[in-house]
């Protein structure tokens, strides 16, 4: 359950010094002190130090339009803008009918100018809190048919904000309208606080809003959930398959089956948007699989499940096993189980895994999971829709790998082929996503948005490379990204990322060979690398050393002439 404001606020006295810091600017046209406190205090809950600049009251335009403002001097990573609907309503009432008709268009135009300024004067990501879609009851329900009504215009404004978000890649939206409709008007707003103090929100709503804003920020920082691990009995269906049998488990029309069916439909949607589904159940495997294979009302099929683990081992061990197969971080996993004991064990022994406290009544499962907003994302690409298939192909390779006695023989039989391309409009979203999602094989962990990637692709100061890999078992897709900054005769490796799915394929050898031959062809002399340690990229700590780079002033340097090609089983294919 979400803490109340006063309890959350007590975090402010705690020590944030061990947490990573990110700089957040908060601009509002109402009093934002409480929101600032809530956001700072919520940071403690997620082990993050939000260093917050709060602009003086009602200075949104002043701070964003002037390139020397305190806002830009603060050099924020994120700028949150909050326009209150009260102020908007006041402005609307002052307008004549013609202005009312154009109200949303004018607002969207204004917002675009504001964003353009922010984008020009700072490197910050822009987070806009949208409006709750109220009806001021001047026209009653008829307002839905009248374009000079506030409710018509406010809905149109929210839609325009979404359109801006689609067009402008560094523009993100905090969906206050959803939160308000979920928690209800009375829990969200407090008209007394507004009248007396120009405070918009009910105090105990602030932790909810802070949590929502923080999940956008953390997602932009690369903390993304990639996988859901599911229990079966009383989680995916009602009853116990081993005791009740196929005919009596509750799913579809039987008993409370509808609640489980709806949960499954939702999980299937998650899978289609790129979340990996895994099963972890205490059962005989053949019995656990029976409903997936034979029950006519099951929504999820075995094809939807990337890793299926059913045995009598502890779930902690089984989740560790799933983690090894998928090669994802524990902090990118969500574990859903109706049994509080299992949940507590996982929470205790695998504290990085997110474990929602599922309500007792299955009827509340889905609604509760919605309220947790577990699957925040900041990008979506074609690649996401294919992820389950990619991971399944990988599972087949893993089995093959075991059947070859000699690893070189295995690699050579894969028949790997790589396509190399510069960044372009078509691959930008996938490239941005790799920079956001990859943590392990990532030398400097710089996160880029799609807009950043397009800028890089047009810049003459950078050489950009993306690598897509295929083999006999299928396509891995675009799995590696290299960004090289040109500095006279030197190339600096700004970014080198490889998806962990292609580790131990001699793929990094192929990439280094490629970089060096490209550098040689273009008369560069030296390649400079840097390793910025995080708690996740220890894997590549010695990468530069292994490729013959020499350490110099905490960076790594390679004389291109001294590089000899490394052995690789990857062949290049021409575009």
């Amino acid at each position, binding site marked *: 359950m979400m803490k*109340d*404001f*006063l309890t959350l*606020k*007590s975090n402010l*006295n705690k020590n944030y010094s061990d947490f990573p810091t990110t700089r957040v600017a908060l601009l509002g046209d109402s009093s934002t*002190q*409480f929101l600032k406190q809530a956001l700072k205090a919520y940071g403690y809950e997620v082990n993050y130090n939000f260093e917050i600049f709060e602009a003086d009251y009602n200075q949104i335009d002043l701070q964003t339009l002037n390139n020397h403002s305190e806002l830009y001097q603060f050099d924020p990573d994120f700028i949150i803008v909050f326009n209150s609907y009260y102020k908007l309503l006041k402005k609307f009432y002052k307008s004549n009918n013609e202005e009312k008709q154009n109200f949303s268009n004018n607002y969207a135009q204004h917002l675009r100018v504001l964003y353009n300024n922010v984008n020009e004067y700072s490197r910050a990501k822009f987070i806009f809190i949208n409006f709750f879609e109220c009806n001021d009851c001047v026209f009653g329900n008829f307002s839905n048919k009248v374009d000079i009504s506030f409710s018509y215009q406010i809905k149109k404004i929210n839609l325009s904000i979404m359109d801006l978000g689609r067009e402008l890649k560094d523009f993100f939206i905090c969906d206050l309208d959803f939160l308000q409709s979920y928690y209800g008007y009375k829990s969200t707003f407090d*008209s*007394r*606080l507004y*009248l*007396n*103090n120009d*405070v918009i929100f009910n*105090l*105990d709503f602030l932790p909810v809003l802070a949590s929502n804003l923080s999940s956008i920020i953390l997602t932009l920082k690369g903390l993304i959930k990639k996988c859901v691990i599911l229990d079966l009995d009383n989680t995916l269906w009602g009853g116990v398959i081993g005791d009740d049998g196929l005919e009596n488990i509750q799913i579809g029309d039987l008993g409370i089956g509808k609640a489980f069916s709806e949960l499954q439909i939702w999980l299937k949607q998650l899978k289609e948007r790129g979340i990996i589904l895994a099963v972890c159940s205490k059962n005989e495997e053949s019995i656990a699989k029976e409903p997936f294979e034979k029950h006519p009302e099951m929504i999820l099929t075995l094809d939807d499940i990337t890793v299926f683990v059913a045995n009598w081992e502890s779930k902690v061990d089984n989740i560790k096993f799933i983690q090894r197969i998928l090669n994802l971080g524990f902090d990118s996993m969500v574990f859903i189980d109706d049994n509080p004991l299992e949940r507590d064990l996982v929470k205790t022994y695998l504290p990085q895994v997110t474990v929602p406290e599922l309500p007792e009544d299955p009827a509340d499962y889905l609604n509760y999971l919605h309220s947790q907003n577990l699957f925040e994302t900041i990008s979506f690409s074609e690649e996401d829709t294919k992820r389950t298939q990619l991971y399944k192909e990988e599972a087949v390779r893993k089995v093959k790998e075991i059947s070859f006695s000699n690893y070189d023989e295995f690699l050579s039989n894969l028949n790997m082929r790589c396509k190399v391309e510069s960044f372009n409009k078509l691959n930008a979203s996938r490239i941005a996503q790799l920079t956001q999602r990859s943590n392990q094989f990532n030398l400097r962990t710089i996160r880029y948005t799609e807009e950043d990637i397009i800028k890089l692709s047009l810049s003459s100061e950078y050489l950009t490379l993306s690598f897509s890999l295929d083999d006999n078992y299928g396509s891995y897709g675009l799995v590696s990204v290299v960004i090289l900054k040109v500095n006279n005769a030197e190339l600096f490796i700004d970014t080198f990322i490889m998806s962990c799915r292609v580790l131990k394929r001699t793929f990094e050898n192929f990439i280094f060979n490629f970089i060096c031959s490209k550098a040689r062809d273009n008369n560069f002399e030296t390649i400079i690398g840097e390793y910025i340690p995080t708690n996740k990229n220890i894997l590549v700590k010695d990468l530069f050393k292994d490729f013959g780079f020499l350490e110099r002033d905490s960076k790594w340097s390679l004389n291109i002439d001294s590089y000899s090609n490394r052995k690789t089983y990857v062949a290049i294919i021409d575009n």
Partner: protein
Amino acid sequence: MNKIEITKICRDIFRKVFNNPLLEIDENSSPDTIPNWDSLQQIILLVTIEKRFDMKFSASESQNFKNAGDIISAVFNKKKIN
């Protein structure tokens, strides 16, 4: 609930909100005598008291409180009527 009980509960809430378990509170305690008592802290104070006693202060009431005594009396009057 009598006034003594209400006063005792309110005193604990003051101490929690002002984050000082030893804070001395009497009827005359006010923003002049308690250093952290500003308009924002007052909002938190009033909202916490409302939740504890399951009642609401009106907008104008909450504007006119001058000291702890005013607040405690207002709670007492509401709980007495109910």
